[in-house]
């Protein structure tokens, strides 16, 4: 096809122009009003910053659910006057089991268990084994529950990070039970790691009648204010979900730091009732299974507000207030991967990337002119257009560019001229076979096209696989190469061909420069 219609000509030129326009925001500092302003984001390896991969503790989620399911099951059996013996909870197999009081009650008890309301569909299955009734949490349902918990956690993580003043953080789900946090510019993520690693479940509970030994219905917990074990009742009187506000203040009496809190009306009522009924006794303020303090109840607390004094300093008091305001996580999160790049290394990487990109580009450009003459020059023009289009597409999607991504761009440019080389060699062969310039061009383009598509398709497949299975910077590398293959097909099959065709139409050479 040696004739380019006006429409096709305008189309190719138009796409290149749009490409240039889309690239511009990356090089201008101030956004122009009323224009869509989309830039490439620099990855953390270029910008400096921290990457944290958080893992939701699925076991703890299961443990909590087993505990509440056990309460539900007991209550249901009690309501139906069905007896049971030996009710055990097994965290390892995520199951509960009990023996019915008698064989006569077995079916009724089994039906009662089957009719327990699940929190998510098909949450647990009831079965019978060795005369015992077994309730087992289903893995798929727990994963669904984990996905919910991750969604809730992302909100809370965002609130906590926003409160630290980190700029432009990105928080996203990964897989079923993980969260990726990216903190540009944060080169010391220790405080944020600590904040995110705290579940911040605050509960108010009474101490056991004898606080020095555990009795049924109570658990020994570490009392951090006196560094001793203390027995605290399992029953929670008021918990942190009823908090409306919290703040760090200086305690008027002691002069140390303290955290004040306000409860909503339900919490305030519950708090008033408990404190009224237990004047003179001690209650414990428990954060994540650790007792912060266990003061005496001197008089009923009816205002719905209070103060925690637990040996805080300014930092720990404001962090606790921050955590309480942001809310508790549905399950503990732990950091399983951390990557921090300091600002100086990031700047060095940008420098290294740009130097490599320019040097590589120059070498390829020189090679093409020396080995392919005029058509090599056209290939070089197409190469520039290719680079611009890659940057344009990355900007359009507001994609992230990492150092491996820059390597991907450069390798794409090295591979891109392969299409031009194929076409040129083909044209040359056709000339050697004695065809005239026009026929040689025509045959060269037509025959090379199939080869170009085949050879790019396999590279495309390999990098799509890398994109699917890769993570982080490697994924970015695969993305730039995949985009690069698409832009390469455009610039070589349409643009450089157009340049050759226009040149031929204007110059009408007797001999081709191949």
């Amino acid at each position, binding site marked *: 096809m040696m004739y380019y219609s006006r429409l096709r000509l305008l189309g190719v030129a138009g796409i290149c122009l749009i490409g240039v326009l889309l690239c511009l925001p990356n090089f201008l500092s101030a956004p122009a009003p009323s224009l869509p302003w989309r830039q490439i984001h620099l990855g953390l390896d270029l910008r400096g910053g921290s990457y944290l991969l958080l893992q939701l503790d699925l076991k703890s989620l299961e443990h909590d659910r087993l505990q509440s399911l056990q309460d539900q099951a007991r209550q249901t059996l009690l309501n139906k006057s069905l007896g049971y013996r030996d009710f055990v909870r097994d965290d390892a197999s995520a199951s509960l089991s009990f023996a019915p009081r008698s064989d006569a009650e077995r079916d009724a008890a089994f039906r009662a268990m089957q009719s327990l309301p699940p929190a998510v569909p098909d949450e647990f299955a009831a079965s019978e084994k060795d005369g015992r009734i077994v309730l087992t949490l289903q893995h798929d349902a727990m994963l669904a529950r984990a996905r919910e918990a991750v969604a809730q956690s992302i909100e809370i993580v965002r609130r906590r990070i926003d409160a630290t003043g980190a700029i432009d953080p990105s928080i996203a789900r990964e897989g079923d039970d993980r969260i990726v946090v990216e903190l540009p510019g944060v080169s010391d993520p220790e405080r944020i790691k600590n904040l995110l690693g705290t579940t911040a479940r605050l509960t108010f509970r009474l101490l056991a009648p004898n606080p020095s030994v555990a009795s049924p219905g109570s658990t020994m917990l570490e009392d951090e204010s006196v560094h001793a074990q203390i027995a605290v009742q399992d029953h929670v009187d008021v918990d942190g979900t009823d908090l409306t506000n919290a703040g760090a203040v200086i305690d008027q009496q002691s002069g140390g730091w303290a955290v004040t809190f306000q409860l909503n009306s339900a919490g305030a009522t519950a708090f008033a009732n408990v404190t009224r009924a237990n004047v003179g006794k001690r209650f414990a303020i428990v954060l994540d299974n650790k007792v912060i303090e266990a003061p005496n109840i001197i008089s009923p607390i009816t205002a719905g507000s209070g103060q925690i004094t637990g040996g805080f300093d300014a930092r720990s008091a404001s962090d606790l207030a921050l955590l309480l305001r942001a809310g508790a996580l549905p399950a503990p999160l732990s950091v399983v991967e951390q990557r921090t790049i300091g600002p100086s290394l990031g700047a060095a990487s940008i420098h290294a990337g740009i130097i490599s990109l320019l040097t590589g580009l120059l070498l390829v450009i020189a090679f093409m002119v020396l080995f392919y003459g005029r058509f090599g020059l056209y290939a070089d023009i197409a190469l520039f257009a290719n680079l611009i289009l890659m940057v344009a597409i990355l900007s359009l999607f507001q994609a992230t560019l990492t150092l491996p991504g820059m390597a991907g761009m*450069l390798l794409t440019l090295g591979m891109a*001229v392969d299409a031009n080389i194929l076409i040129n060699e083909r044209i040359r*062969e056709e000339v050697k076979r004695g065809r005239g310039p026009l026929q040689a061009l025509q045959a060269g383009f037509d025959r090379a096209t199939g080869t170009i598509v*085949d*050879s790019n398709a396999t590279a495309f497949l390999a990098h799509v696989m890398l994109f*699917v299975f*890769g993570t982080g910077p490697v994924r970015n590398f695969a993305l730039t190469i995949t985009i690069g293959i698409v832009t390469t097909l455009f610039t070589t099959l349409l643009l450089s061909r157009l340049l050759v065709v226009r040149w031929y139409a204007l110059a009408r050479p007797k001999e081709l420069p191949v």
Partner: protein
Amino acid sequence: MLSRPLFRFVRDDQRINFMRGRHMGLIVSAVLSIASIILFFQPGLKLGLDFRGGIIVEAQTPGPADFSKLRAALDHAGIHPDAVQAFGSPRDVRISINAPEGADREAQTQKLVDGVKSAISAAEPGTQVLRADAVGASVSSELFRDGLLALGFSLAMILIYIWVRFEREFAISAVVTLVLDLTKTVGFLAITRFEFDLVMVAALLTILGYSTNDKVVVYDRIRENLRKYRTMPLRELLDLSINETLNRTLGTSMTVFLAALPLALFGGSTLTGFATVMLFGIVVGTSSSIFIAAPLLLLMGEKRLRKETEAG
């Protein structure tokens, strides 16, 4: 200068008898690949942080780094690093610790990285942390699995693609050649002691993509010539096809080589290993198209390919 090319790799009428050296090529390739497999087991690959788990902290001290002082400071903090090394300038220190063992290892890993940072900042005030990475054991094994899956699926996709677009002999000899290429690259990794991490998997996949591309171009010409010269013996036909595409094969490998070269020279610690392995892969991938993929095709398809085209 523009009127005709200044340089060519080989003359257009060059006819090198590549197939004469086919047994030599296959034997050399097999020996190198077997040696690479031995190297893969002994001494083995040096796993990078991604796949091994653990901690790497890279820091720059204000003056020349005092290693004994840093070791003492770490020791004092109860941290026993597996290596405290210099890298780059005399001010640059790299501290690496393998993933701790035990039940609480994920949390331990994360605690250690903060401990290392504070210990060295205390020992050498004004120290800048360039990089601090901590990868938990569960994450590293997943990353390793995903890396292998990416490689495996890529090979499978390439096999299917070539099978569909060409014929069975082409697909099988391409994949066998690719596997031989990959083993040699793995052997190169084992010798050079570059760390094998996710970026290296990306390098292997890029080599895979490049090498396949190279083979597809040669195969494409073989297929075309099979139709064009119906009576030419396969051996001659393969030689002809390789010679006809030789300028293109060398040209493309040259441009990719030129693109990867600056990455190896100026790319910094992240990319030097990646790009060096790429350069090796380009050389291996280019030569295997000529010396391995085509001879394999000759071995497998001597009767079948010729007969089929005669029939069709």
